[in-house]
């Protein structure tokens, strides 16, 4: 459950807010598509959900944004990592490790999951996304589509 309550976000080098008084609720199990013109604040909206805006980008945010009861004002992105998975536009820019399998496991390692749970989830994700043959392939050698699948898998695990 994601709740925006009169959220207004202003970046540091501008006077006009990017988002003004956004109020919305996304219940569990909902599939939502954000559509808008270039520069209308889609990315800001999405990045605000896991706290990257304003924790990483700077700027001011007023109003209240809660994910499953945790407010982004008091929780850094890392404290929301167990609730939110992010797939960046350019998958390569978000990869931390060198191989497919390690990349899928990275997020779970950070969350401190038990090794057997990790192994099971990595296998499931590899099968689900058809990446099983590529498990030990270096991320740099993958094609663009394969990289996207790895990034999606890394967000799923």
């Amino acid at each position: 459950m994601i709740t925006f309550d009169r959220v207004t976000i202003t970046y540091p080098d501008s006077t006009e807010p990017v988002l003004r008084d956004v109020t919305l609720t996304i219940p569990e199990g909902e599939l939502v598509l954000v559509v808008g013109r270039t520069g209308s604040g889609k990315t800001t909206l999405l990045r605000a959900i896991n706290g990257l805006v304003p924790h990483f980008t700077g700027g001011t945010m007023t109003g209240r944004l809660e994910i499953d009861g945790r407010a982004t004002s008091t929780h850094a992105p890392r404290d929301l990592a167990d609730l939110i998975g992010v797939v960046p536009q350019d998958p390569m820019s978000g990869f931390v490790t060198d191989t497919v399998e390690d990349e899928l496991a990275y997020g779970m390692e950070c969350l401190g999951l038990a090794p057997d749970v990790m192994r099971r989830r990595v296998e499931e994700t590899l099968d689900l996304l058809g990446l099983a043959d590529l498990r030990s392939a270096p991320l740099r050698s993958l094609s663009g589509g394969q990289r996207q699948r790895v990034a999606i898998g890394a967000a799923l695990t």
Partner: protein
Amino acid sequence: MLLVATAAFVVHMRRPDAPWSGSFRLFLRIGLAIIIARVVLQVIFVAGAGTTLLLPLPGITLPTWLAGIRLGGDITAEALLTALYDGMRLAAIIICLGAANALASPSRLLKSVPAALYELGVSIVVALTFVPQLAADVQRVQAARRLRGRPATGVRALAGSAMPVLEGALERSVTLAAAMDSRGYGRSRHVPIAHRRAISVALLSGLVAVCLGTFGLLSAGMAPWLSLTMVVFGCVACIAAAWAAGRRRIRTNYRPDPRRLAEWLVLSSGVIVAGVFVACSMVGVDLATATYPPEWPTLPIATVVAIAIAATPAWTSPPPPPLRRTAPAPELVTA
């Protein structure tokens, strides 16, 4: 010389096909540049010592308000040799570092780093992975310049492409940091504030004790037993604080790295070589070749054996896994 050859040999035998392993050639070039720079500097600034004249040149001594530096002057064999050895020593160190860089997988290295130093290790590894990325960026920008009909090489082109490359690198590092953070990097257990303060106090007092103790040992102004106790106490305090801080970490390992026979063999070959060299210098075998007067370099037999041992990882370490090559993706030119 032998050391460098050994390093190159081991790299050649066991180089995995990974992004970080292309850097060895770069390090070789840096080593060569160091030797040349050292010799040239010697010729310009400190020529003239020694007696064996190779090339008589006029020299000027700068006036005293310019620190009285001597420029130019006769080039002697002794001075040149000293410079050459100095440069070679430095180059050997750089090249050995390069070999380690080309062979070790940074992320595997990270798994053996103690918990307390983990965060530091990650920043180093991320910084290391940026070097090949930077090289790729330079090539991309140069290709873009060529497409626009501008010169891609030369000083002006370099200046023109430096800014976009640096900007790209900076932007990418921020993006990576954001991605790592949103995937939970650096999450820690909640620790009561009193506990955290205790860790800081222990760490600080330990560091201060180590500094004072080392100063006392070196300057001999304090009683030796006192400074020694301070060093020991400081080390213990630091280690304890680091251990306590490491317990905050909740991270688990997906695939623990087991230490097998091969790992132990490689490790022991390194230890043996280091031991032999230390022992040599202790019993007084002179490893440096004298330059006044110049003499033919000698090679103690023990060091040759040690260097031969250093080459053994070429066989004892496991061969890099064969790679499955996937078809390269057609890349869009976005420039």
